[in-house]
């Protein structure tokens, strides 16, 4: 019998777009597309199991080997700091990790420290350590833009897609940290122990991504 392959996906847009690619490869995604309350869903014919989890949990499941593959944004992947194989850029879910704040240097919130509000404390720490700048990190879990607006922080470090939320709050991008898109990640052991099947999936998805790009141009 074929090995079972488990794929961890974050509910939402990334999952939908991944299903489309997988369906082009002949994988039946009807169950995970209509999950109801189920958390574990199957394509029995292909012995493929889907688990739908919170985005930041995708690297965790894959690192522990309970999921062989996962689809996750590069931002979440960097923040997790887990040793995974990052095998493919799926190219959708594109945005940028940026530092944003008031373009005109307004009075700092406090003169003593430079405060960064973010959902990505690990990335922020790495970014500012790299620049040799001392900062205080304020970890938030949503509406990070409020930070400078309400005087909680000097800047924010967050993902920026269109920039409309920033503009609506009078903020602008001050620095770009890195590009973000959806990545296919693989457990370090699964890649080897379930080699044939996983290589087949990666190659198939890579081909789909290539076609998708061609169609766009």
């Amino acid at each position, binding site marked *: 019998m074929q*090995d079972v392959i488990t794929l961890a996906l974050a509910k939402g847009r990334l999952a939908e777009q991944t299903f489309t690619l997988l369906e082009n490869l002949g994988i039946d995604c009807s169950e995970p597309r209509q999950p109801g309350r189920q958390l574990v869903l199957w394509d029995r014919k292909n012995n493929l199991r889907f688990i739908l989890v919170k985005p930041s949990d995708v690297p965790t499941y*894959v*690192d*522990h*080997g*309970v999921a062989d593959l996962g689809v996750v944004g590069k931002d979440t992947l960097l923040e997790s*700091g*887990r*040793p*995974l*194989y*990052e*095998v*493919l*850029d799926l190219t959708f879910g594109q945005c940028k990790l940026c530092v944003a704040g008031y373009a005109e240097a307004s009075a700092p919130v406090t003169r003593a420290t430079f405060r960064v509000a973010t959902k990505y404390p*690990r990335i922020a720490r790495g970014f500012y350590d790299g620049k040799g700048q001392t900062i205080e990190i304020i970890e938030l879990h949503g509406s990070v833009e409020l930070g400078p607006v309400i005087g909680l922080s000097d800047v924010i470090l967050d993902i920026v897609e269109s920039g409309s939320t920033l503009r609506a709050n009078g903020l602008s991008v001050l620095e770009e940290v890195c590009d973000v898109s959806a*990545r296919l990640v*693989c*457990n*370090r*052991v*699964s*890649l*080897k*122990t*379930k*080699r044939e099947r996983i290589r087949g999936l990666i190659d198939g998805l890579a081909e789909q991504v290539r076609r998708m790009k061609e169609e766009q141009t």
Partner: protein
Amino acid sequence: MEPRRLQIPTGMQDTLPGECARKRRLEQEVRRLFFLSGYQEVETPILEYYDALDDPTYGYRPEHVWKTFDSRGRVLALRPDSTIPSVRLAAGRLREEALPLRLCYVQSANRYVSDSLSLLCEETQAGVELMGESSPMADAEVIALAIEALRGAGLKDFQIELGQAGFFDGFMQEAGLTPEQSAVLRELTEQKNTLGMQLYLEKLDVHQDVARRLMRLPRLYGGTEVLDEAEALTAHPLCREAIAGLRSIIGYLTEYGCASYLTIDLGMVHQANYYSGTIFRGMTADLGQPLISGGRYDGLPARFGRALPATGFALSLKLLLMALERQGASFKPPVPDELVGFAPGCLRQAVEYAESRRAEGCSAVLLYDMTMDGMAERIRRGQARRGVYLTQDGCLCYPKED
């Protein structure tokens, strides 16, 4: 704040009876295997001078090493593995020993795993170091021993993946990259991050052909066909030598009957980069991470003042136990063979009986102030395999012997 009397420090662990019994059995088996293969066991202190570890090429990040100070303010480190201490011995107190030197150990290693990653900070590792022997046959011996250790422990469906540190170095040299640039690519290769590699190579502005060849690196894993593919990719003497070396090791391991366990990953790089030749790790689909890590580290002993070729491996017994459990091994605490109850005034008979059983290798536990019925009840509840009740008139067995 509540005093932490019932807790243990984060990352540490207790080993409870069931697991501990299983662990001891594994330790005994692996010790015996190493001993029968001519490896001599050593113990090294749990603390070393940090100086011995403080070299960026070793791959120990300072924040991952547990440190403390002695009374004179010198920095001490909890050993993060047993390879460096073994090398320290070989270059120091075992300097006059005849070569080759075969050392083994079963002892703890401590690494501080920062942040929220809930990895264990302490684990028992069993490993061997074979020093003073540069032949590929020595690599094969050590790899075969690693396979035998896993096989002997009853692990199913595992594989040993071979890599070659020299191959990576040669590949980088051929591409004309500086050590700094190859360090970046080493990390990207380790993550099999083809996109990151592509972006980095675009930035470096290397020739297209070179970039295309470098991009093959993360995909050079699989069966022995990978070696043919790699041979077609590069003519660098280091790479040629690396591939030839791997081929001869695979040949020797075939003689050991181990060929079926082997796979190749030429993109493998170890975290510690004192490795120089053939490197390997052991893995099973039942565990998300490798449980054996090893390889040749010819350059390391010279840093301690004694140039010696060397190879070895470390097996994480904790990860092995986890893999065995996932494969269905049971960790039930061992049940005593016999309960020994006795009527008032018969303690002497009971003690003599229990000792005679123990001399035969059966475990016997005394029961105090217990009736025959009370003993029978305990055995029905599974607290021992059988029971013996001693009275002035003789002994009764439960369950009754046929």
